[in-house]
């Protein structure tokens, strides 16, 4: 993992092994000191999406240090309790229960895939533990106990589609991962393409374990679209970009993506000569040109001179989650969950590395600035900025003012 192995952690590890040798008895958990506020972190630190989870965890710990350096909260120190769910949903549910009931966490940050969020969200709802989900996703969560800071398709796809159609043309070929996120994103792409007078010539879905895209590339060639919209996800799908370039298509048909570079790993793994020119739209890029962001990027580099975390929407919004929560605790003057939620629902605007952010009281999603960027040599060159974009998709299905007890992930239907 990311930190150096201290003697303490080795001792803890040995204790775990010893504990496992005797079978059933649970290790006694150290009682938490009453003068500490516990922040729970549930990010995948091993397993196939650890490239996203490790930076999020690093940034969360850095935010805790910063809060403590400026005097803590309510006169107490903040302490991070970090578990590694190992990309395993049953461990997710186990640790979420533990954070709520055993560690008495004041807030939990985490969950990366939608599946992991839908695993822990009901648990944290049931045990009344405030929850921040800081990942871009397909939209539709309606739960007063959760704050969702990531962008949703209505915030990004709505901007990306007209921009790229204006550059390249009206015939769009969509390729997407075959699960909830991909299906919903593809539906939004279709809606916005048609609204802008274009046509989606075909939409192909790929299971996450597909690695060979030869047949698809042939199909795209015969459809002759003006552009390809990619919502591919995961390491298997990375093969598409290499195979696309290998077939000589790189300079023939341009690609826009709602996912490429979102977690950051893609731009490290795929070579610039393959990835250059892919246009994306997210709520944060490390190249956002504001004093706040420049200072933050420097601070991250200073805190983690080695193994510097990838700065993406995911890690930047984890920082925002911590800061917004800390601000709400100060405003509320207590750790009472309802008071903290009410403090965030006032619609206060926060100035963050990504720009201006506020929490929409109706959906508990972020109203935020989004950017369109062109990837060149591993740098996102920002082309356009859109201010204060609403989470319009979730707003279609969710109204927490009218229905404060909602506890559901709606699938936003576009029929």
């Amino acid at each position: 993992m990311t930190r150096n192995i201290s003697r303490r952690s080795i001792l803890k590890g040995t204790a775990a092994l010893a504990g496992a040798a005797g079978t059933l008895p649970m290790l006694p958990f150290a009682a938490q000191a009453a003068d500490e506020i516990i922040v729970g972190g549930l990010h995948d630190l091993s397993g196939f999406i650890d490239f996203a989870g490790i930076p999020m965890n690093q940034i969360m710990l850095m935010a805790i240090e910063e809060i403590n350096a400026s005097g803590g909260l309510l006169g107490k120190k903040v302490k991070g309790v970090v578990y590694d769910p190992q990309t395993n949903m049953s461990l997710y549910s186990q640790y979420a229960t533990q954070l709520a009931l055993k560690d008495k966490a004041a807030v939990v940050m985490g969950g990366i895939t939608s599946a992991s969020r839908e695993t822990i969200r009901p648990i944290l709802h049931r045990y009344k533990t405030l929850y921040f989900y800081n990942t871009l996703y397909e939209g539709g969560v309606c739960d007063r106990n959760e704050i969702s800071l990531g962008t949703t398709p209505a915030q990004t796809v709505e901007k990306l589609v007209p921009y790229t159609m204006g550059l390249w043309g009206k015939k769009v070929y969509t390729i997407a991962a075959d699960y909830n996120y991909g299906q919903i994103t593809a539906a939004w792409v279709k809606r916005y393409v048609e609204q802008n007078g274009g046509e989606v010539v075909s939409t192909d879905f790929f299971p996450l374990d597909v690695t060979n895209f030869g047949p698809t590339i042939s199909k795209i060639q015969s459809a002759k679209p003006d552009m390809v919209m990619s919502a591919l996800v995961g390491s298997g799908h990375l093969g598409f970009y290499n195979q696309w370039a290998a077939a000589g298509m790189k300079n023939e048909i341009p690609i826009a993506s709602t996912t490429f570079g979102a977690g950051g790993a893609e731009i490290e793994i795929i070579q610039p000569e393959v990835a250059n020119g892919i246009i994306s739209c997210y709520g944060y890029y490390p190249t956002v040109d504001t004093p706040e962001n420049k200072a933050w990027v420097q601070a991250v580099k200073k805190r983690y001179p080695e193994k510097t975390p990838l700065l993406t929407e995911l890690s930047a919004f984890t920082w925002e989650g911590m800061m917004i929560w800390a601000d709400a605790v100060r405003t509320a003057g207590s750790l009472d969950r309802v008071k903290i939620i009410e403090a965030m629902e006032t619609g206060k605007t926060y100035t963050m590395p990504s720009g201006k952010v506020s929490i929409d009281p109706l959906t508990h999603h972020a109203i935020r600035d989004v950017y369109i960027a062109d990837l060149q040599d591993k740098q996102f060159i920002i082309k356009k900025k859109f201010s204060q974009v609403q989470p319009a998709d979730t707003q279609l299905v969710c109204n927490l003012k009218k229905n404060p007890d909602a506890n559901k992930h709606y699938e936003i239907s576009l029929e």
Partner: protein
Amino acid sequence: MDFSLVVAIELLREVAGLILIATGLAVIFGMMRVINIAHGEFMMLGGYTVVLTTKLGVNIWVAILILAPLAVGLFGIIVERLIIRHLYGRIIDSLLATWGLSLFLIGFVTVVFGNTVEGVSTPFSGLAIGQYTVAIYTLFLIFAAMAFIASVYLTLRYTKAGLIARATMQNPDMVECLGVNSKIVYMATFGIGAAFAGLAGGLLAPISGVVPGMGALLIGKAFITVVTGGAAVVAGTLSAAGILGTISQAVTFASGPVFGDATLLFVALILLRLLPQGITGRIFTRSV
């Protein structure tokens, strides 16, 4: 016309892909009755070898064709000495131990190299066929797979080492009686199987994402190809890859990748029901 040529190339490419990923596993399974679950991770190591050495300035062909099999082959020999040699004749235990090895390797590579390593881009460009273009690298892969399986065949059929290997497959005790040290045979076999995996990983590196978990995406298909093929290394792999690859890729063209993969599994199921010892358990029984 152009389109059918493209489809034909893609069908061959799927067959070639199955041959590449399955041969190493088939050598180890066919000769030693050991199912190497870490085979996928051996391929991953091959991919990493290519990615890391080309970064240091090594020519990409040297990296793919020489360094990747060499490094992974040596690693395979070490693994055989440390772990596998204790487990001969214990097929299930070897499964468990190599499963452990596969987890270990994923974790180890993640810790040492991090989970993001810059990949290599594909050598060669596209070849125009009418309105289509096909990656020349695809053609190269098909050629490489054919050369690969042909060299295995020629070695088994015409060299002394091949003779010993075939004899060991049939009756290891008798081979031992005739004065051959079967320990060395097993060690070499495992090393060669691992080297094949390394070569396959190296060849696939330019057209896939090289990440610690990439082996898991490949092992399932490799395993099914080997078992469907049965005990004979060359005939089994060739026939199983041929049947499964052609049918599944044809279905993929017709109706998308989900049903392509499902069809591959379904055909394997039917074949195993009809030929319970694998294809070469019933047909081509005298082949290698």
